[in-house]
């Protein structure tokens, strides 16, 4: 399957006569990035699967009104971030627990997760995760795992580039500190 640029995909969606096909191409192009972005936030595969479907479904409904002020990829990430954070808030309310306790629940799930592969990165990840939750964003994930530019991250998280650089620096230092202690 040929890889289309965002502009080509949007053109195909609006003028190609078959928006469903263009949308499917978009799903194929971004499925993994969107899924992994969500998975790193919510940890659980089933939750990440549901949320990924929600994100693409919302994208399908909103694609007609998408003005292409930002990249398609950035737009999808923003929807994914919002959906994930909103999901985590709801889940936290369901447990009636403070953030710290909920972080521990998720951290335990990482510990016993059937998909777990590597101990060192797992511990590393737990710390990053807690950091991300506290900051209501995922600057570390977007930069470290998704290799996003600060400008794109700024659009996704609606934060200034300077603040994101500081946040990323802080997160890396925290992870380093954590690795030294464990």
């Amino acid at each position, binding site marked *: 399957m040929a890889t289309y640029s965002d502009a080509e995909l949007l053109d195909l969606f609006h003028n190609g006569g078959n928006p469903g096909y263009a949308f499917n191409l978009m799903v194929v192009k971004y499925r993994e990035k969107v899924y992994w972005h969500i998975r790193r936030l919510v940890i659980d595969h089933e939750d990440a699967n549901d949320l990924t479907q929600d994100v693409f479904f919302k994208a399908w409904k909103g694609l007609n009104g998408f003005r292409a002020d930002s990249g398609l990829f950035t737009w999808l990430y923003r929807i994914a971030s919002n959906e994930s954070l909103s999901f985590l808030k709801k889940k936290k309310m369901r447990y009636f627990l403070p953030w710290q306790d909920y972080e521990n629940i998720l951290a335990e799930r990482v510990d016993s997760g059937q998909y777990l592969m590597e101990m060192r*990165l797992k511990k590393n990840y737990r710390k990053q995760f807690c950091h991300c939750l506290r900051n209501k964003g995922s600057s570390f994930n977007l930069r470290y795992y998704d290799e996003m530019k600060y400008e794109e991250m700024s659009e996704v998280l609606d934060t200034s580039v300077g603040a994101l650089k500081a946040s990323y620096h802080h997160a890396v230092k925290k992870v380093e500190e954590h690795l030294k202690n464990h």
Partner: protein
Amino acid sequence: MSTERENIKKELKEISTEIGNLEKRNPFRVPDDYFEYLPHEIQKRKRVSESPAELWLGFFPREMIRITAVTLILIVAVATGLLLVNRHDQEMMVTHEDELYFEEYLAWYSEYQQLDFYEFISENNFQADDGLASEELLIDYLIDYSYYYQQSIDELIED
């Protein structure tokens, strides 16, 4: 992206040499062929959402639909309860058939046990407006009286 990747690696090493030298690996796995099936799952969901019922319900937030459904169930439950109670009340009300029964009873009673009957009326100080116990007033009186004491007319008179 590869230039950005190099920038990120360089930046990471500047912040932390240890983390910059770590091999980047994903700590999670997904079920086999998950990403192959994902577009089909999304298409399936899209098709379901475009069905007429879903389109109609799609105008309302899910929470509103849930609250409406619960409210409707409660209304139906309360209405059913009231209906059952009403039916019980209706069973307790005097019907035309009851009146006929009392009329027949009165006819029989006045024919065969007139003394007892007149005794009962005088004991209860029953008087019609014109000073005479008319048949219709007597029937009403007996019906009310028997319902009030939850007794049959025989039991009332015997008491």
